C-alpha cells in the first residue's frame, strides 16, 4: 500500500512497534481512521533462523538486535560510541518485540512515586491505579502465562495461561531462593503455554525466542495487535521512513514527510500525529523537526536499566538450552528501597536460560571456551550445565544520558542519525555491585561448581526510555499525563520515551498500558469536543 502525495488522514502514527500497534488497534476499533507509517517491513515467518542449523550464526549478524550490526536497509545507524550501554531494537512491524524475550512484569505502585517515597528523581503524573485496568486489558489481548497471587505485587486477575515451566535452571534457583528465604515468583511471560489469540499456537519450548517465533506462541506485536488493528480498519504503510513532523504558524502539527523505500519523498497531512518510534526514534524525530522542546528535555534522561549477569556452572545437566530464553522465574527480594543499603530503589533478578553450542563456545554468559587441547572437554563441562541470573537495576534519569542528532553519521537518505550518550550513574552502579554479590550468593546456595560474572552487559540497551518525559509542568516535561505534547496540542508521544522513571524491570507491558490509556483519553476528548 502506498500513500500518495497530499494524502490526508485523521490520525497518523509513526512506528508499528509495541506501542504503535496497541494505539492503532484502540483507535481503529473506536471507528477513528488511523494510518501508521513504519520504516521496516513485516517479518517473514517462513524464513526464521531457528528453522535452520545456522541459527546461532544468524544471531551474530542478520538477526542481531543491534541495528548497527544487522544493517538492513531499513535500519538507520546509531552513533553509540559514547554510550556505555548500546541501544538494541528492531525496525519493522512489531518493532523491538520481534526480538524480545516476552518478559511481561508490571511496574509496582512505588515505581510511580519515587520522589515522594525515596526522595529521588520525579513522581509520575499518573499512578499504578490509573494503569491497572489497562494492564489487565493488555494482558487479556497479548495472553500472559503466569500465576496470580504473588505477594510481592498488587493482586491481578488470573493469568490467561499456566506459567512457563521452570526448566532445570529455574528449578535449581527457585530452591536456592527458598533456602535463602528470598521471595521469588514464576515470571509473567507473554508466551502461549496454551492456545491464545487467532493464528497463534502453543510454545514448543524451542529456546531462541529472540530469533522470531515460528509458532507465533511468543506475542510480538505483529501477531497480537496488528492483525486486530488491520481488521478494524487501520492502515499500515511499511517502508516509510519519517524524517520530519511539519507544523503551521500556530504551532500545530500538520503532517509528516517520509522517504519510501526508493528514496522518494511523500507528505501526509493529519489532524493528529502520534509518535511511537521508541525512546531513540521518537527523540530523533522531535529533534529533527525542532518541536515540542520548550523544556529542553527532548532526548534527555535516557534510561536503559544497567544489567549485570551472573552464571553458575553445575556438575549435573540442567539442559537450559530448552525453553524460552528469558524465562522462567524472577526474584524481587531487593526491589524496594531499604535504608540499610547504600542506594535508593533496587533491582530484580531474572533467571535466564543457556546458550546453544555456538554461544557456549564463543562465550557471552560465560567467558569463551579456550582453544587448543582441552577445548572439547571444557565445552562438554559447560554446555547444558549452566543457568544465569540477570541483575536489572533501577536507572535513575540523568540529563547527561541522552539522544542527540549525530553531527557526522547519516542514514541512507542523508538524514542525521541518532547519537546516544550514556553512562551508568552512581546509584545504579551501587545497585549493580550489591546485586552481583546477591546473585553470586544465590549460586552458592544452589551448589554451583563455578560462578562467573559479567559486571555490566554493554550490548543490553533493550529498554529505550525517558527521552520525552511525561509531567504536569511544561517547563520540566515534554508531554502531559495524557501523552499530549505541552507545546503541540495535536501531537502525542506514546512509546517508552514518556517514562518519568524506569523502575527496575522490563517496560513493555507498561508501555502498552500507557498507549491504550492515551488512546482512550484521545477518544474521550474527541467525544467531549463533539458533544460541546
Amino acid at each position: 500500500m502506498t500513500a500518495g502525495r497530499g494524502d490526508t488522514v485523521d490520525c497518523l502514527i509513526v512506528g508499528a512497534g509495541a506501542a504503535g500497534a496497541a494505539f492503532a488497534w484502540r483507535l481503529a476499533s473506536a471507528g477513528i481512521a488511523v494510518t501508521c507509517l513504519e520504516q521496516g517491513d513485516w517479518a517473514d515467518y517462513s524464513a526464521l533462523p531457528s528453522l535452520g542449523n545456522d541459527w546461532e550464526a544468524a544471531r551474530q549478524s542478520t538477526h542481531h538486535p543491534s541495528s548497527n550490526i544487522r544493517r538492513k536497509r531499513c535500519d538507520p545507524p546509531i552513533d553509540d560510541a559514547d554510550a556505555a550501554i548500546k541501544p538494541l531494537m528492531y525496525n519493522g512491524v512489531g518493532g523491538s518485540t520481534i526480538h524480545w524475550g516476552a518478559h511481561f512484569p508490571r511496574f509496582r505502585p512505588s515505581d510511580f512515586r519515587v520522589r515522594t517515597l525515596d526522595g529521588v528523581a520525579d513522581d509520575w503524573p499518573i499512578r499504578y491505579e490509573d494503569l491497572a485496568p489497562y494492564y489487565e486489558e493488555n494482558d487479556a489481548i497479548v495472553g500472559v502465562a503466569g500465576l496470580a497471587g504473588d505477594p510481592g505485587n498488587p493482586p491481578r486477575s488470573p493469568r490467561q495461561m499456566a506459567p512457563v515451566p521452570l526448566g532445570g535452571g529455574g528449578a535449581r534457583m527457585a530452591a536456592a531462593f527458598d533456602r535463602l528465604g528470598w521471595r521469588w515468583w514464576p515470571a509473567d511471560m507473554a508466551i502461549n503455554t496454551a492456545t491464545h489469540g487467532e493464528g497463534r499456537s502453543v510454545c514448543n519450548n524451542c529456546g531462541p525466542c529472540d530469533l522470531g517465533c515460528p509458532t507465533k506462541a511468543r506475542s510480538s506485536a505483529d501477531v497480537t495487535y496488528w492483525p486486530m488493528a488491520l481488521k478494524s480498519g487501520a492502515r499500515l504503510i511499511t517502508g516509510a521512513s519519517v524524517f520530519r513532523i511539519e507544523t503551521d504558524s500556530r504551532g500545530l502539527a500538520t503532517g509528516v514527510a517520509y522517504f519510501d523505500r526508493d528514496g522518494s519523498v511523500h507528505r501526509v497531512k493529519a489532524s493528529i500525529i502520534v509518535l511511537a518510534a521508541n525512546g531513540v526514534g521518537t527523540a530523533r524525530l522531535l529533534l529533527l523537526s525542532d518541536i515540542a522542546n520548550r523544556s529542553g528535555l527532548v532526548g534527555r534522561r535516557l534510561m536503559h536499566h544497567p544489567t549485570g549477569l551472573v552464571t553458575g556452572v553445575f556438575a549435573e545437566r540442567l539442559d537450559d538450552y530448552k525453553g524460552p530464553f528469558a524465562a522462567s522465574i524472577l526474584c524481587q527480594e531487593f526491589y524496594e528501597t531499604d535504608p540499610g543499603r547504600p542506594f535508593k530503589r533496587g533491582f530484580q533478578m531474572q533467571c535466564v536460560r543457556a546458550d546453544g553450542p555456538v554461544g557456549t563456545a564463543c562465550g557471552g554468559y560465560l567467558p569463551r571456551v579456550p582453544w587448543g587441547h582441552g577445548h572439547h572437554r571444557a565445552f562438554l563441562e559447560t554446555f547444558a550445565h549452566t543457568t544465569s541470573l540477570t541483575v536489572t537495576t533501577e536507572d535513575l534519569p540523568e540529563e547527561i544520558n541522552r539522544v542527540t542528532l549525530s553531527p557526522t553519521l547519516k542514514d541512507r537518505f542523508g538524514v542525521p542519525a541518532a547519537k546516544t550518550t550514556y553512562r551508568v550513574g552512581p546509584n545504579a552502579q551501587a545497585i549493580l555491585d550489591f546485586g552481583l554479590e546477591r546473585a553470586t550468593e544465590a549460586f552458592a546456595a544452589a551448589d554451583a561448581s563455578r560462578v562467573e560474572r559479567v559486571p555490566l552487559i554493554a550490548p543490553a540497551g533493550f529498554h529505550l526510555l525517558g527521552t520525552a518525559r511525561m509531567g504536569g509542568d511544561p517547563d520540566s516535561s515534554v508531554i502531559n499525563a495524557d501523552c499530549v505534547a505541552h507545546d503541540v496540542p495535536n501531537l502525542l508521544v506514546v512509546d517508552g520515551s514518556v517514562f518519568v522513571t524506569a523502575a527496575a524491570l522490563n517496560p513493555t507491558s507498561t508501555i502498552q498500558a500507557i498507549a491504550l490509556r492515551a488512546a482512550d483519553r484521545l477518544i474521550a476528548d474527541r467525544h467531549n469536543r463533539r458533544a460541546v
Partner: protein
Amino acid sequence: MTKLAALIDVLLPGDEGFPSGSATKVEAWLAVRLDRFGAALETVLAALPDPLTVAGVAAVEAAHPAAFASLLTGVYTAYYTDPVVRGAIERATGYSAGPPQPKGYELPPFDPAVIAAPASRAPSWRKV
C-alpha cells in the same frame, strides 16, 4: 594443508569424539564471509610463525587480541554449526543435532507445588 587449515587444527584439535577443525566446513565457511572476517584473517595469518606451534599461536593472540578474537568467533561459529560436529554433540549429550524448530522440545506442565514457600510470604510491595 593450508596455513589456515593448520591453524584451525591447533585451535580445534580432534578429540573427545569431535572431529578436528580442518575436517569440517570451517575453512570454506570463512572463505565466503571475508567481508566480516577477512581483515582479522589477514592479520592473524600474517603474524603466524612457521612452523606453527601452540606457543606461536598464543603469541599471536597476545599480540593481536582483537583480530584473534574475531577470527576465533568465526572459527567456533563455523565449527559448531557443522552437521558432523552437531552429530558429535548429539552423541555426547543427547542435544538434538537438528535446528530448534519446527520440532522444539516438550513443554512440561507447570508444577504448582514449587511455589509453596514464596506463596506463604507476607506482601512486600509498598502501598502508596
